[in-house]
C-alpha cells in the first residue's frame, strides 16, 4: 500500500506541482484564470507537446532523440515548399519527410548498433544543415493554395484552437497505445530490460525503429503546424526544442533510463513548464535570462525529488 502511494505520488508529483502553480497563478494574477490566457498557454505549447509525446516513446525504450528540433524545421520547410500543390500534400509530405529521417535514426540505432545519443546528434546537425541549405537560410512563404494549412494553424473547432485539439487527440491515442496495445507494452518492456525482452522473443529492433519513426512523425506534425501558424517555413525554427521536450518528459515523471512513465505524465510535464513560463511572463519583472536559470533549477529539483521517491519505492 505504501509503495503504491509513493508510486502514485511519483507519477502525479508533477500534477500536484501543476495544480499548485495554477492556484498561485489564479490568486496572484487577475488575467491568469481567463479562458483566453489558458487557451493561449495550451496553443503555445501544443507543438512542443507533440514533440514531447514522440520523445516519450523513445525515452520509454531507454533511448533519446536529439534530432526532433531539426526535424520540426525540415518538416516545416518541406510543407511550405510543397504548399502550392495543396494543403494535404504539404501536410502529408512534411510529416513523411520527418518520419523518414526518424526511421533512419531507428535503423542506425537498432541495426547498425550505434548509440541513440550519437545517431540523433548527427541527425540533428545534418537535418538542420539540410533545411538551411535547401532554403539558402531564407524563410519559405506558404503558397496561396494552402488555405487548409491556415486553418490548421489558426482555425478552431467550437472555440478550441485546432492545434490544441490535435494535441489532446494525439495524447489520447498515445495513452491508449502505450497502455492497451502490444506495441505499447513492448516499448515498456524494451526500456525495462532489452536483454530480457529479446530473450522473451520480442521483435526489439522493429519496436525501436518504430519509436524513432513515430518521434519523427510527431515532430513533422509539429513542424507543419508551426509553418501554418507562422505563414512560412523557417529553417532556423524550433532550435533547442529537443531539450525542452526532454525536460517536459522528465519533469512529467518518465525515467530517462526507460521502462517507466507514460503519455499522461508527459502532458502534465508540458503543461507544468508552460504554466510556469506563463507566470513568469505575467509577473513581467523577471528577465528572460533569469527565467532560464529558474527553469533549470526547477528541473533539477523535480529530478532530485523523483530520484528520492524512487529509491524509497525500490527499498519498499
Amino acid at each position, binding site marked *: 500500500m505504501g509503495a503504491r502511494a509513493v508510486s502514485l505520488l511519483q507519477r502525479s508529483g508533477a500534477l500536484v506541482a501543476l495544480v499548485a502553480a495554477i492556484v498561485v497563478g489564479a490568486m496572484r494574477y487577475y488575467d491568469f484564470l481567463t479562458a483566453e490566457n489558458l487557451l493561449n498557454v495550451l496553443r503555445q505549447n501544443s507543438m512542443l507537446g507533440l514533440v514531447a509525446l514522440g520523445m516519450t516513446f523513445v525515452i520509454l525504450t531507454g533511448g533519446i532523440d536529439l534530432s526532433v528540433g531539426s526535424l520540426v524545421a525540415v518538416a516545416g520547410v518541406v510543407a511550405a515548399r510543397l504548399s502550392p500543390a495543396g494543403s494535404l500534400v504539404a501536410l502529408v509530405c512534411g510529416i513523411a519527410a520527418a518520419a523518414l529521417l526518424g526511421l533512419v535514426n531507428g535503423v542506425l540505432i537498432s541495426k547498425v548498433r550505434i548509440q541513440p545519443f550519437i545517431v540523433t546528434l548527427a541527425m540533428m546537425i545534418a537535418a538542420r544543415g539540410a533545411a538551411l541549405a535547401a532554403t539558402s537560410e531564407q524563410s519559405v512563404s506558404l503558397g496561396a493554395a494552402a488555405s487548409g494549412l491556415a486553418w490548421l494553424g489558426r482555425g478552431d473547432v467550437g472555440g478550441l484552437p485546432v492545434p490544441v485539439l490535435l494535441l489532446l487527440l494525439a495524447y489520447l491515442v498515445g495513452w491508449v497505445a502505450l497502455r492497451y*496495445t502490444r506495441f505499447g*507494452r513492448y516499448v*515498456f518492456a524494451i526500456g525495462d530490460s532489452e536483454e530480457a525482452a529479446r530473450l522473451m522473443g520480442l521483435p526489439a529492433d522493429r519496436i525501436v525503429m518504430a519509436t524513432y519513426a513515430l518521434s519523427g512523425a510527431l515532430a513533422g506534425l509539429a513542424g507543419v503546424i508551426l509553418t501554418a501558424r507562422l505563414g512560412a517555413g523557417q529553417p532556423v525554427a524550433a532550435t533547442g526544442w529537443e531539450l525542452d521536450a526532454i525536460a517536459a518528459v522528465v519533469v512529467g515523471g518518465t525515467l530517462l533510463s526507460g521502462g517507466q512513465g507514460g503519455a499522461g505524465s508527459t502532458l502534465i510535464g508540458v503543461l507544468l513548464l508552460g504554466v510556469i513560463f506563463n507566470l513568469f511572463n505575467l509577473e513581467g519583472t523577471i528577465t528572460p535570462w533569469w527565467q532560464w536559470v529558474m527553469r533549470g533549477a526547477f528541473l533539477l529539483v523535480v529530478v532530485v525529488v523523483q530520484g528520492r521517491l524512487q529509491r524509497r519505492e525500490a527499498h519498499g
Partner: protein
Amino acid sequence: MTAGAPLLRMEGITKRFGSATALDAVDLVLQRGEVHALVGENGAGKSTLVKILTGAYRRDTGTVELEGQPVSFDTPAEAQAAGVCAVHQEIHLLTHRTVAENIYLGREPRRWGFVDWRRMNADAAALLLDLGLDMQPDAVVGSLNTARQQMVAIARGVSLGARVLVLDEPTSSLSPREVSILYALVARLKAQGTAIVYISHRFDELYAICDRVTVLRDGRLVETRPLAGLERLDLVCLMLGKRRDELRHGTTAFAEHQARTAGEPTTAPLLETEHVGGGSRLRDVSLQVRRGEIVGLAGLLGSGRTETARAVFGADPCARGKVSIQGKRLDARSPDDAIRAGIGFVSEDRKAEGIIPELSIRENLTLAALPLLTRYGVVSRRRQREMVDRFMERLGIKASSADQRIRELSGGNQQKVLLARWLCTSPRLLILDEPTRGIDIGAKGEIQGLVNELATDGMAVLMISSELEELVEGSTRVVVLRDGESVAELSGDQLSQQAIIHAMAEGGSTSSPGIAPDHPVH
C-alpha cells in the same frame, strides 16, 4: 530403454568457437517427467549445450529431435514456441512490470486488438494457483525477492507450454526455505510430464531431486546414468576424470591439513571483535583471529556472516561494540581505513563487488596495490609487470596473457586474481567470503590449498563458507553465528559438521564447550 520414445534427443552435437572445440559429439536424451542433472567442471560444455538446446547458439553438427521430430532453433523465441525454455542464473525479467505482464509478455490476451488487463491478471492468478505459488499477479516484479522472481520466470516457461525446462543454477541465491518451494514446483512439473534439465554445483540438490545425470568433461560426454546408486565420490571422479583411488581422503583440499594446530592461545589475537552490532542483521558478534589461524565463520543465510565481515572491513558502519587489530582499536569507517590497517576482503559477489570485467588481469590484479606502484602519480609499468608475473605464477592463474580481459576467465581463475589483488598489498588479515562458491572442483582445491599456505606463512584468515565440509576440514576454529549473534566456537575434537549444524539450529555457548558433537539435529 522401455520407457518409450524420449521427449528430446540430442545426438552428436559439436560446436567450435574458432579453433577451440566447446562440444565434441555430445548426446543428451531426456525422458518425459524426468529431472536430469547436467554436471561438469567449468569448461565442460554445459552452458554451450544448453545454449544450443534453447536456440541461443547454433550447432555445427548433430541432430536434435523433439518428440521424434527433427528441430533446429535459430533464436530463443523459436525454442520457446516449440516448448523449450530456460531459466537462467541471472534472471531475465522486466523489473518495473507486474508478475502477470512478465508471464504473458508477447502473448497478452486481447479484446478487439487491445490488451485485456483483467483477463491477463485473472489468467495469471489461475496459473500461479495451479503451480502452488502464493503471489499477487499485479505485484511489481522488482519488489519480489530473488526466489519469487525465479518462480515468475518458471511460471512464464510453464505458461508457454514448456515441455523441456532448463534450470541453470536455480538455487545459487535462494535460502533453504525458498529452495524447498522450488523443489515442490519441480516435483509438480515433473508429475505433469515436463522434462527438466537441472544444472547445479550442489550435490545435495542433485541427489535430492534428480533422476539421471549426464556428466560432461572438456566438451565430451563422459556418461549418462541413473543417479541412484552412484556414490558422490564416484560422481566427483567422473567429473574430474580421475580414478577413485587417486583421490585424496575427503573432498576438499583442506583434508590433508585436517590436523591444523590451533594457534597458541597465549599469543595475542590479531583481530578481535567484541559485541559488535549494527544494521538490521548484526546484533552481538565476538570473535578472535590469531596469526596463522584460519577461523571459519558458519551460519545460515541471513545469520550475519557477510555483515560481520563488512563491519570489520568498514564497508558498513558498526554501531555497537569494538573491533581491534593487534590490541589497537580500529573501528574502520571506510574500507580505506581497514586496508591501511592491513585487512584484505574478498567479497562473495565476484561479479558485482569484485572484478572489473572489461579491464585486464594486470589491471584487476594491481588495483588495490596501485599506491605501492605509483611514484609522483605515475604507475611504474615495470614494477606492475613484475608483481603481476609473480602472482600469476604463484597462484597458477591460467590465462593467455596478463592482458586478457578478466571477464573471459573461468570463475576459479577470476577468484585467484581477486585473491592476488589483496595478497599484493601484503595484508595481515584476509577475510574471504565464500571463496569457493560457484567454482569448479579443480580450482576449488587449488584455492583451498593456497589459503592453507597463506595461514602457514603466518597470515590470519577469516573464512566465511556455506559448505560445512570446507569449514570443518579447513579451519583451526569455527565460530557459528545465529540471528546476528556468535553462539558457539568449536575447535579440536568438538569441530564437526554435526556440531556446527546443532549450533546453527539450537545455539550454544562459547563458555560451555560441552556440546555433544553427535547431538541429534531437529
